[in-house]
């Protein structure tokens, strides 16, 4: 087994009555790209803040590269890179000044680690004299990543790096992450976008402070226990309601322009469903059996696990 980078054991953190992180345990290997998927309030940010030594755990232990987050926090602060969920750079400093500042406080220079951030930085280099506050969302993200990488961290924590970023920039961002992974950096990344989960080595699904499952994206899909039909019809709103009332139905979700219908075993026959829908007055009903994608799997996982 590969060397371990991050170990979390029975970690719990409360804020008053709310339990933000509830008895979580997991391990991340060195050089792994580990994703956390979950809706807002799942506890992802709290978990990241504990791992980056910004918050103290109430119970349980965490080690990053062998250092304890409570006792050895100073050592961890030298070796980890952190990109908070909100854009947190100095808006009144230029791109270049921001980078130089973060390089200096980590005791390094832009030139020294230029190779590591070259791919990312080159895209924003033409704007290096521009104030960070005047950059577009995607460019801000690239600058923030450059700043988090400037000291060549061993572990990189990215808290929802792609939230609020356009689709093209998101794709570019994940390409950068796989290049960093190739450079041997352990990456922990959280995202509310389920489709990004497939790009990780392993994915943890979080909900309500709990870890619902940890597995590779492939396993997640293989372990999907249901059968799926994709249903298309003109009036999606009424379609969803009528599908839910159909006998043998397990769950129904809107998925873009179509509805995904999940059922156990052979509970539903496509032909009779089409007849049922046509009787209800739907025109041009299209029903196709499909394989589960990662989103179907997470929806199902979130549904079945006890809260």
């Amino acid at each position: 087994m590969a060397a371990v980078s991050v170990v979390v054991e029975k970690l719990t953190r409360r804020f008053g009555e709310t339990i933000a992180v509830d008895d979580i345990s997991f391990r991340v290997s060195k050089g792994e790209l580990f994703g956390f998927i979950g809706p807002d309030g799942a506890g992802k940010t709290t978990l990241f803040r504990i791992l980056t030594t910004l918050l103290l755990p109430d119970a349980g232990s965490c080690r990053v590269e062998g250092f304890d987050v409570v006792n050895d926090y100073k050592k961890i602060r030298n070796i980890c890179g952190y990109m908070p969920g909100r854009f947190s750079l100095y808006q009144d400093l230029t791109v270049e000044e921001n980078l130089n500042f973060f390089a200096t406080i980590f005791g390094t220079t832009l030139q020294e680690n230029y190779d590591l951030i070259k791919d990312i930085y080159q895209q924003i280099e033409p704007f290096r004299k521009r104030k960070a506050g005047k950059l577009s969302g995607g460019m801000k993200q690239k600058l923030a990543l450059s700043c988090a990488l400037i000291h060549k961290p061993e572990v990189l924590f990215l808290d929802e790096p792609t939230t609020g970023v356009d689709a093209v920039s998101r794709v570019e961002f994940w390409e950068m992450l796989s290049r960093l992974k190739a450079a041997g950096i352990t990456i922990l990344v959280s995202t509310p976008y389920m489709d990004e989960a497939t790009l990780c080595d392993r994915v943890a699904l979080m909900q309500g402070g709990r870890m619902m499952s940890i597995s590779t994206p492939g396993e997640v899909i293989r372990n999907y226990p249901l059968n799926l039909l994709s249903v298309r019809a003109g009036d999606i709103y009424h379609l969803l309601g009528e599908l839910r009332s159909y006998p043998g139905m397990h769950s129904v979700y809107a998925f873009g322009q179509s509805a995904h219908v999940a059922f156990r075993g052979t509970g539903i026959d496509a032909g009779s469903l089409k007849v049922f829908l046509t009787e209800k007055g739907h025109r041009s009903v299209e029903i196709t059996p499909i394989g589960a994608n990662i989103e179907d799997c997470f929806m199902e996982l979130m549904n079945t696990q006890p809260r």
Partner: protein
Amino acid sequence: MKRFRGFVIKEFYHIFRDYRTLLILFGMPAVQLLLFGYVLTNEIKDAKIAIYDPSKDVVTRRISDKILSSGYFLLEKNLHSVAEIGPVFRQGNVKLALIFETDFAQKLEKTGTARVQIIGDASDPNTANMLVNYTTGIISNYLVSMNSAAVPLRIIPEVRMMYNGELKGVYMFVPGLMAMLLMLISALMTSLSITREKELGTMELLLVSPLRPTQVIIGKVFPYVFLSFVDACIILGLGNAVFGVPIQGSIALLLMECFLYITMALSLGILISSITSSQQVAMLISLVLLMLPTIILSGFIFPVENMPWILQALCYLMPPKYFISIIKSIMLQGNGMAYVWRETLILVGFTSLFLVISIKKFNVRLA
């Protein structure tokens, strides 16, 4: 050290790119000083006076009694020679001295005229003026009651103001304004600049970096020490050039005391920022808890002697009060360390208290 330098450079970028900050930093002192050229009235009670009475006859005793029983004055000291007047003023308690001429009663009886000298400490011109007016009023009342005789008797009060002969209100306002502006710039600006990092989330990044809390704090404070110092010099220079406010004492000592006061205000600013996380709250606390007391409870505008005891007690908890009296003492009376060491020690005490609390309270984590 290199990290620290990088941090300080960043702070200077913040300051010089924000024209509002610059305006507060450099525009305000000048505007305030020019605006505050005016004097507000104030009232007096229990002002301490010294009396030199070489004649010790019935008339001088009666006049002294009248003055002391008026409720405005308290006898601090009976002087034994004219030479004692200077030192007794410089100690700072005595606001007014009364000097009778020798053989007062005899001269009054024989020639119908006697002289009394009234010396006021005009480093606080309003108070001095008021005290002198009260005293002459009491003396002339006494005369009226005596004037049953056919020959009108005259007592001529000779008024002399010490330390600020022309009764310039500006003299008073320069120390007060220094106390106020340095407090505002130092405390408000540091507390704002630290809470701004918290609000923007950059504090998270600073915390996750290997920078130590003391480096962050000192890095934040350093530019403002420098800039506040520049401000102190602007106020002193403008006061001198435009209003002719003298600097009688040692400039080195004066600047040292300014430095001490600035440090005190800065540590207060850090303290404020450590108990709040939003710029608005920090601003509110700075303004309400620092500015108003600095103006009202420091003796800057209203004389402390005239307040109810509970407010007077509060006044003794206001660092600016001590700074103002130090500055007045050095600038206007030309005193040295021997006269201001007590206030200086008190300021040192405040500074260390605030610094210790704020470094203890500065969190190496988020919550």
